[in-house]
């Protein structure tokens, strides 16, 4: 992306600040040298790219470079407050990059630039911040995006929980791609790119309230490349959505309502790990509502579904992809599941948070 840089904004080499304390204090949010040391030594060092290194109040990029890649901009934002900060398969940093990258990618956009705004609770270990920043940098490298601007605030103990991260993202939508929840048509096929509920089950397990010992990890992953592959193989794809909070069930309901169609899914075709099923059995949760951080729901026309499925399965993040159901003209606005037993049931929108049952 070196062309993206105007010569006039190229960074003059500037000595970077060094942070030599073990913990963050309110001084690191004060706007002075301590803050610059924190920003330089933790974030700029990890994210390391020329657009960020200028440390202007804004990142600058050339319109011509953007318009060469598509005809519309996509912009999105998300905040990350996950507890615990580190969990099997990921951490808050990886999540903050992948989540925003995926929100761009599912709209058919090529993700390009992210911002990173952190709210830090005083007393957090600097090493914890470094781990998070490194993890963000690794995820950004994999997703082929740059973190180009950011902000840090430090708040009093108890005013936030260790660290909250907000990332916003900008991407460019390729010409001719127009994905939307209202585009589903009866006969279309519903695909997912792998097993469902791993992230939600992992977080529940990692909170440590329950002595659950299940070998599961978060599916957190940047899906830009997978989605590009899918769109190349099935250009008629109607809609893609990452099935995060609220799970696959919530996405399917949105599609059914927006497109005024019915959606029928098969319980036996829905891929869920035994370990995740086990966690759900114990806690009384439905894996269809568990959060995913590396799973998409795709609606594709039937005649392109075989190509779409093959393309997904050929990608490392789609090896266990499968068709879980189809769009119908019956029971418009509703999602119906054919149960493993041969019955049918409605899969409704989740109300509030899924609360564990008591008995």
């Amino acid at each position, binding site marked *: 992306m070196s062309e993206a840089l105007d010569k006039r904004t190229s960074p003059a080499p500037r000595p970077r600040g060094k942070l030599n304390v073990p913990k963050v204090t309110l001084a690191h949010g004060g706007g002075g040298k301590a803050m610059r040391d924190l920003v330089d030594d933790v974030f700029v060092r990890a994210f390391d790219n020329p657009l960020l290194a200028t440390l202007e109040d804004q990142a600058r990029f050339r319109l011509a470079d953007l318009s060469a890649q598509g005809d519309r901009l996509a912009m999105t934002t998300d905040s990350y407050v996950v507890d615990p900060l580190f969990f099997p398969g990921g951490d808050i940093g990886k999540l903050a990059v992948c989540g925003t990258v995926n929100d761009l990618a599912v709209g058919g956009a090529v993700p390009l630039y992210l911002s990173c705004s952190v709210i830090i609770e005083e007393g957090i270990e600097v090493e914890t911040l470094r781990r998070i920043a490194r993890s963000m940098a690794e995820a950004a490298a994999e997703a082929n995006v740059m973190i180009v601007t950011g902000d840090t605030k430090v708040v009093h103990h108890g005013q936030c929980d260790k660290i909250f991260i907000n990332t916003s993202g900008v991407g460019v939508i390729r010409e001719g791609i127009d994905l939307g929840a209202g585009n589903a048509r009866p006969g279309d096929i519903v695909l997912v790119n792998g097993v469902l509920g791993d992230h939600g089950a992992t977080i529940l397990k990692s909170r440590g309230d329950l002595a659950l010992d299940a070998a599961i990890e978060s599916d957190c992953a940047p899906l830009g490349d997978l989605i590009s592959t899918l769109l190349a193989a099935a250009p008629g794809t109607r809609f893609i959505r990452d099935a995060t909070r609220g799970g696959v069930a919530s996405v399917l309901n949105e599609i059914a309502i927006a497109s005024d169609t019915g959606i029928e899914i098969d319980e036996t075709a829905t891929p869920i790990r035994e370990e995740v099923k086990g966690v759900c059995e114990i806690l009384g949760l439905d894996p269809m509502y568990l959060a995913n951080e590396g799973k998409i729901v795709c609606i594709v026309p039937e005649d392109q579904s075989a190509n779409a499925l093959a393309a997904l399965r050929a990608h490392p993040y789609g090896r266990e992809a499968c068709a879980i159901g189809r769009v119908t003209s019956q029971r418009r*606005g509703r999602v119906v599941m054919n149960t493993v037993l041969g019955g049918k*049931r*409605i899969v409704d929108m989740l109300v509030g948070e899924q609360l564990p049952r008591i008995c």
Partner: protein
Amino acid sequence: MKYVDEFRDPAKARALIGEINAQVARIETCKSRPLAIMEVCGGHTHAIFKYGIEQMLPDAVELVHGPGCPVCVLPMGRVDDCVALAETPGVIFTTFGDAMRVPGSKKSLMQAKADGADIRMVYSPLDALAIARSNPDKEVIFFGLGFETTMPSTALTILQAEAEGIRNFSLFCNHITIIPTMEAICSSPDLKLDGFLGPGHVSMVIGEAPYRFIAERYKRPLVISGFEPLDVLHSIAMVLKQIAEGRAEIENQYSRIVPKNGNEQAQAAISRVFELREFFEWRGLGSIDHSGVRIRDAYAHYDAERKFAVPALKIADPAACQCGDVLKGLLKPQDCKVFGRACTPETPLGALMVSSEGACAAYYQYGDLDREPVGEDA
């Protein structure tokens, strides 16, 4: 194949449906009116809807969803008491997750938490005791809720607290017992039930004997049932077989979990800590004699009702709410005047709409396939 999948096998389900149809064919009375079988336990209600069991049954068999959901039968006044306790300065109030959204007359525990009360969700009363141990300067109250299924763990927690000498822990006891309520249902003059599926996990504690009066005095069959879909279908077939053969007995389909005499150690822990209340108020059903338990005097220092000022006001349910008739099996959830209109899972009027084991919430979420979608209601 995993252990649990064996109880969800579609081929076996079809065989059981065949058996159910065969039994129905032998029963003359169901040609004029459907046979009504009550599943007492909310866990069964949930399984029935989750697997679409109702639509697989012949028209001659109707399932009636009973009062066995402890969250659903909690009267509004008790929720107000919880909120008052939770808002007492210096208190950490601990509860199972289900109870968070149950509406009180002014607010739910979830709203009280948002207003600043220190309310924490736990998975076990021992978690609440651990909170008490690590917060010696706070009073930790555990909201004890449920039938005999959860009673032993609460009783053992009190005994543990006593053994450790922990004094900043107490129990707001709302434990209830299913037998007097089943007796109230059976003795109702408008009883329309032909048989029962008995609660599996309650029976694991209390055993088979307490149900005998249902067979002996009221001449109705009861089959203690497991919670997997094949368990439920198998139990329905067993109830129908009894009806077809003119028998009324207590049978145990869930013998892999439920011993004939229950769990005697658990029973001992219960009776050491708890005694029957003279009466307890059930939402929708009213006051039922000896249907709740309280802490014995020997452990009075663990009784939140004696340790704190509890308002204990009786609050009538909203007039439009017909939870009581639904609980008694007189009304189907979707026939209630406010179902899906004023009363939805987002804004529940009645408790049956709150818990996933409540009949109304189950109907709303999984049930009537041809109901109008949310938001397009008249």
